């Protein structure tokens, strides 16, 4: 579904990622780690077509990103749920409307999916905060709302960029459990994080590949984790 082949990405005159090949197979679970500034967020953006590689190929569901139109990208993003580190909401809309935004923009009537939305908000523990505006949500609530928004279209892949970056350990565990639950439903998950404790905690619950970006290359992390 997402394939990278000899991909490199340069930014500001310097090469940030070099000669990376990876294939995300359906139902797989990946952690992406590395030091701050290593290029984890850039890597994720390349994985959903927000950035175009400088060289090599990135194929999303069989389509090479350079050959995709803006509409193709929009349709692809309905199949790839993204949880941003800063969540990115429309601050003038209540949280429930933000979660339902992928349904809205795809032309589906939110009322037809009201029960799905309620179930989803209950799943992420935000039923009572449905009408709250995003600026009034706590860090953990924002992360869970972003996760709910990422999965409301039942995407094939969920990419999460530091989903536990702004929350305490208990909330990190809760978010991790939600992502593992999604994986058990058959979704492909990739979590970019610098929190090694989170990766260690996940090892007992899910079979995950841990990838590390170091020296512009993507490596399979060893047993040191």
């Amino acid at each position, binding site marked *: 579904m997402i394939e990278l082949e000899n991909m490199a990405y340069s930014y500001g005159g310097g090469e940030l990622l070099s000669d990376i090949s990876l294939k995300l197979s359906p139902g797989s679970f990946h952690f992406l780690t590395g030091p701050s500034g290593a290029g984890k967020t850039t890597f994720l953006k390349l994985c959903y077509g927000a950035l175009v590689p400088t060289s090599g190929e990135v194929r999303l569901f069989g389509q090479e990103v350079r050959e995709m139109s*803006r*509409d193709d*990208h*929009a*349709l692809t*993003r*309905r199949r790839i749920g*993204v949880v*941003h580190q800063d969540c*990115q*909401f*429309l601050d*003038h*809309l209540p949280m429930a*409307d933000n979660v339902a*935004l*992928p349904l*809205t*923009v*795809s*032309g589906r*009537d*939110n009322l037809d999916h009201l029960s799905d939305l309620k179930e989803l908000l209950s799943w992420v523990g935000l039923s009572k905060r449905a009408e709250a505006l995003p600026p009034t949500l706590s860090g953990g609530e924002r992360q869970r709302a972003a996760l709910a*928004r990422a999965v409301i*279209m039942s995407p094939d892949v969920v990419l999460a960029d530091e989903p536990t970056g702004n929350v305490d350990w208990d909330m990190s565990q809760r978010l991790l459990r939600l992502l593992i639950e999604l994986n058990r439903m058959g979704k492909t998950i990739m979590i970019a994080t610098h929190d090694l404790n989170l990766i260690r905690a996940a090892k007992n619950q899910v079979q995950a590949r841990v990838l590390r970006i170091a020296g512009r290359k993507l490596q399979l992390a060893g047993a040191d984790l």
Partner: protein
Amino acid sequence: MSGLGQRLTALVTGDAQADRVVPPSGVTARLTGFAAAAMAFLTVFALALSLASGRLAARWGDELAHSSTLRISAPAGQMAEQTARALRVLETTPGIASARALTHEEQRALLAPWFGPDLPIETLPVPQLIEIAETETGYDATGLRLRLRAEVPGAVLDDHVRWRKPLERAAARLRLLGWLSILLISAATAAMITLAAQAALAANAQVIAVLRLVGAQDAYIARAFVRRFTLRALGGAALGTALGMAAVLLLPAAQPEGGFLTGLGFRGVDWVWPVLIPPLAALVAYLATGAAARRTLSELS
């Protein structure tokens, strides 16, 4: 239904959910309404000017086109004989419906504005005027002048051409200026709405980024902005048009002595024309905002 028809239907009916994704109106949307209202107000006057010019040109043409004047200057003893001879010539000229010598009272009335009502016209060497009414086909002015020169040496034929042509030309120019003003106002409206839409799109770059993140296509994003600006322009133009029509209605009624200015306004079916201004302003806004949205979304990608 055609693609354009579907788009217009979607524009009118709207989508409550889609409308909400764009933040509540900012100052640019309010300015769009104000600009559309002001432009519609001006368009009503430009339209009134243009239509009045058209009526004026037609009136001047009609009034002067089918009438002529024969002026006879002759010694007092020959005036009656030359007048009678001229009338005979005119009665036998094809294209002339009637010819009539003005009475002393009528000639006195014509001169009254300059010399007062008591002018002793009978004792003065004032030329005799003959009023000529033409048929629809008109007469051969050159042939008539030749005959008159031979039979009535003191007669001078004035077929009003030298008056009528410059007046008709002036009225046509005035009408052209009116339409040109409407075109310029439309272009200025499109330019203002384009700038306002571009500013609104640029100010909402973050909103657009979120919409794209969750899979919104450009057409969806553009539609949300286009609908908002189109409806603003429609509302503003409707208000401006209503005010403009009220102002035209309150202009003084046309008076014969008032000339052109008191005839500025709409007559009969002319009142339908300004009603078309709001939908046309909305169409201009729809096209301008659509083009601005496509360009801005392309730049933001």
